[in-house]
């Protein structure tokens, strides 16, 4: 293996690693998506390294396909970020942790206080569970008692 290929693979591995670390540790929605883009760039670097090593153009072609998918992902992700920002006026990802697949009683107290603050939002049924067959413990937001 030539030093060129080896060093290029090493750079790709480092980019993927830093993308993973950024994805796991960042709390800003936009920077999480940028970390995913960084991981995709690392994978494209690997394709380039192997394609250049064997003298075939398939590596470049797959890198172009990765580029296309990354553009699609960026467009849809940013549209979703804009839509989410209109709802809560923040980019904090932890406020949307009630969209995950776990049971509602495991949700953090910040999310609960947030949902009680905005009482007009509906409480969603957790994804992945059949609502007709499974009894879902639904935590409704605190509704103030009607004054007599």
């Amino acid at each position, binding site marked *: 293996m030539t030093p060129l290929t080896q060093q290029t693979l090493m750079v790709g591995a480092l980019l993927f690693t830093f993308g993973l670390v950024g994805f796991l540790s960042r709390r800003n929605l936009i920077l999480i998506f940028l970390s995913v883009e*960084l991981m995709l760039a690392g994978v*494209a*670097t690997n394709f380039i390294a192997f394609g250049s090593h064997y003298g075939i*153009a398939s590596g470049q072609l797959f890198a172009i396909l990765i580029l296309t998918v990354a553009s699609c992902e960026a467009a849809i992700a*940013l549209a979703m970020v804009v839509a989410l920002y209109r709802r809560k006026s*923040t980019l904090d990802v932890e406020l949307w942790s009630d969209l995950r697949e776990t049971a509602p009683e495991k949700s953090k107290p910040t999310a609960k206080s947030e949902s009680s603050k905005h009482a007009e939002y509906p409480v969603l049924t957790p994804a992945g569970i059949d609502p007709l067959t499974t009894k879902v413990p639904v935590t409704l937001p605190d509704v103030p008692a009607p004054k007599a």
Partner: protein
Amino acid sequence: MIPITIAQITERDITIAPWHIAVLALGVIGLLLIRASFGQTKPTPMTTVGGFVALTAAFVINVISIPWGIEQSLLVTFGWLAVVASIAFVSFRTPVYAALSFTAIVLDVCGIYILNTSPFLAASTMIVYAGATIIIFLFVLMFAQRSHLQAYDLTISLPRFSLLAGLALFSGLLYSISELNLSEPKPLTEQKVEALGKLMFTDYLWSVEIAGVLLLIAAIAAILIAQDHEPDRLLEAEVTKTTHTQWDGAKS
């Protein structure tokens, strides 16, 4: 203890260059230092100095352990600039700076693409990533960013887990790269862009078509998702208001 271990490794004929260990040490120390003050994004001065020393040591070991030449020096320059920029990307607290350091990463990676005989891909990556994608990200950041740093930019979620996951992934990748046995390299016989175009419109025609359709679907989906539903809500409020006033008038 350590010399014995290295001797055993060389006896087993595992190809681990010194700079592998150096870069692994860089990964360990750098990630530790970036996430040193757990839960906070801001590192202490001691960790900053330590990270700088670790980076410099790994850089020196990398430079002296590879054969020297114009291609090698360019490769080392671009690679280390990419590494430094990605450390900056992970550790910057201001999101705009992080996005700009991502641009720096993309430009360095494009330099590596040119060295790896892919000039067309370098140009298109520069245009698509550094030109278009980052600008859109910056637009959204400016749309959503407040003037001062928010709490979610100053704190980290899962600091220990992300550190351990990054270290485990990188040591695995490093081991597999050092164990890799590729056959002899072959140069490109045709012109580079010509070979790519031939491949794109003969063997991989379906993939290219599917990618185009995917782009179209993504554009439509992005328009639909980002639509403002606020006017509907306003209209509803208007309707309820008028009905209420009508009802009040009828009652009186």
